[in-house]
């Protein structure tokens, strides 16, 4: 008897799922009559009129994925956009810069966020798959080199010194960098090898040499923050926002690239004097997606508010001209 109940429960559950599936099927079908299933289709012919319900009310879905660094900005943009166009769904995924491009290459996404410029092999694969795209810088992130509050000897570092610290097989103790510094081993904390932050660091500081084998890597920047906090001999680098939130426990290291030591601040990052560690972060847009009115509208909206949103979530806005340049790029890609 009890077994019967169990079977009934299971049957009920199964029925509900099937019902949901069927219901879903119908819904997508009927939806398809009004709005295009934009997710993967490049075929947008004739969808223009269908996608809008007149009156400037757009609907549809936009597939956005990529870097976790860019995520907070896109989340903010999507949140704001939903207020404007409640029927457009713009969910944001986090697969990392590289993982995002993988999906972009497979044609699964409309927008791909990246905290580094696209790599050559990625660009080649996109070309092979016939996907045209535009690159839109959204904001600056000032990669911040930090030591612990307890560290009283590091006043600034030159780019060469950074290289000595981070390239494998170079310095072991702080006294290897400058003689007057203590004879203590350097503890290094770095973002994980999958992150765009790591890629950028490898290119600019390591110049593609291997990172020190003693470096502890973590995908979670908060782990790096905690690692540095506890030890006077530790050093780490990560996005500016993580420093800004932990100013009481971390000490920022000004960087000297030949023109004197510069500390990352909103101003020095924005006007480009914090160099070479202020990096632009991007989103890449599939050109064919721009033919769909709701994607086009979203991208325009994004370009308009990206700077403001960037500041709100802890990044630095680009100079105004850059956003104007973006607007031209978008218009051109959309064939105007």
């Amino acid at each position, binding site marked *: 008897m*009890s*077994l019967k109940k*169990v079977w009934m429960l*299971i049957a009920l*559950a*199964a029925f*509900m*799922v099937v019902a*949901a*599936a069927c*219901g*879903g*099927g119908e*819904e*997508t079908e009927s939806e398809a009559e009004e709005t295009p299933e934009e*997710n*993967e289709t490049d075929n947008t012919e004739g969808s223009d009129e269908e996608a809008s319900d007149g009156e400037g009310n757009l609907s549809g*879905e936009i597939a956005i*994925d990529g870097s*976790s660094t860019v*995520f*907070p900005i*896109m*989340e*903010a943009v*999507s*949140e704001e956009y*939903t207020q404007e166009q409640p029927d457009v*769904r*713009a*969910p*944001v*995924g*986090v*697969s990392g810069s590289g993982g995002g491009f993988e*999906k972009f290459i*497979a044609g*699964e996404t409309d927008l791909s966020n990246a905290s580094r410029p696209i790599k050559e092999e990625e660009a080649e694969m996109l070309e092979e798959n016939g996907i045209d795209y535009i690159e839109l810088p959204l904001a600056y992130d000032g990669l911040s080199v930090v030591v612990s509050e307890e560290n009283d000897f590091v006043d600034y570092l030159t780019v060469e010194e950074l290289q000595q610290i981070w390239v494998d097989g170079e310095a072991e103790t702080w006294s290897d960098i400058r003689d007057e510094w203590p004879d203590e081993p350097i503890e290094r904390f770095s973002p994980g090898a999958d992150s765009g932050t790591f890629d950028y660091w490898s290119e600019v500081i390591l110049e593609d040499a291997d990172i020190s084998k003693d470096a502890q890597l973590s*995908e*979670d*920047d*908060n782990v790096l923050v905690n690692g540095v906090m506890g030890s006077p001999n530790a050093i780490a680098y990560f*996005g500016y*926002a*993580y420093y*800004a*939130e*932990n100013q009481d426990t971390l000490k920022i290291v000004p960087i000297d690239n030949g023109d004197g030591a510069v500390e990352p601040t909103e101003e020095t990052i924005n006007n480009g004097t914090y160099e070479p560690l202020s990096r632009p972060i991007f989103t890449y847009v599939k050109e064919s997606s721009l033919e769909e009115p709701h994607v086009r509208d979203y991208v325009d909206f994004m370009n308009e508010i990206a700077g403001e*949103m960037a500041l*709100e*979530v*802890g990044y630095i806005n680009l100079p105004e001209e850059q956003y104007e340049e973006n607007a031209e790029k978008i218009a051109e890609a959309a064939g105007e």
Partner: protein
Amino acid sequence: MKVVGDTTTNVQTNKKTANISGRQLKNKLFKGLFVAATGLSLLVLIVLLVRIFTQGIGHLSWDYLTSFPSRRPEDAGIYSAFIGTIWMMAVTAPVAFVLGVGTAIYLEEYAPKNKFTDLIQMNISNLAGVPSVVFGLLGLTIFVRELSLGRSVLAGGLTMALLILPIIVVASQEAIRSVPAELKEASFAMGATKWQTTYRIVLPAAIPGILTGNILALSRAIGETAPLIMIGALTYVAFLPENIMSQFTVMPIQIFNWTSRPQTEFHDVAAAGIIILLVMLLVMNSIAVWIRNKFQKQL
């Protein structure tokens, strides 16, 4: 001779008493060790719970449960992730149950004992130890790309079903195996077929164990992030799934994203999410215990 004998017994009793106190000391020592071990794990649990609750309780409210995520910590809610988790479970649970219990019944009741079934058995046990990311890759290749289900609830649910399948099979096998052979033999003696015996004798006796195994396996699926990140479940979702082809997010992904934010307010928001997840797990485990007790009494 007598004297000699006396001394030897004396020595022996002395040895014996020394032995007893020594053994008792050992007993006490090990008791202390085990109590300490238990205490330590309890302590860790308590510290964890206290920390999570003090951090998260301030953010818990009806609003938190019914609002979508936001860039502002004070507005952020777990609504879409919570509902997304329930949707995914609605796919995972029946699929994993039917496939898992079916496999277990076949292996225990029907399958001939030969090298082939041994091979299957071994593979299932091995699968239980495969890292969840690998299942994510499998899900990405088969469900998302090959069957082009996209990043849907269905693809996520099926991937999770695969992930917990080995656990369910093993647990169900265990439960079926523990049904006394006499019961089955009696049934066969009455002329019942294998299916009749399985359906009327074995399953009713094994169902508490099977269901407990299932629910515990589902609890594991609820907390998994890696496979879903692989198949591309989303992080910022400001809508609810409408059907099993909808895009979705789940609680662990949302929580993970909040904890990796630089702003400490988001860490508190994450703690609130963890409380919800813990409550959900507790409810599920309680159901497992309840089912076990209820059905066991009826037997």
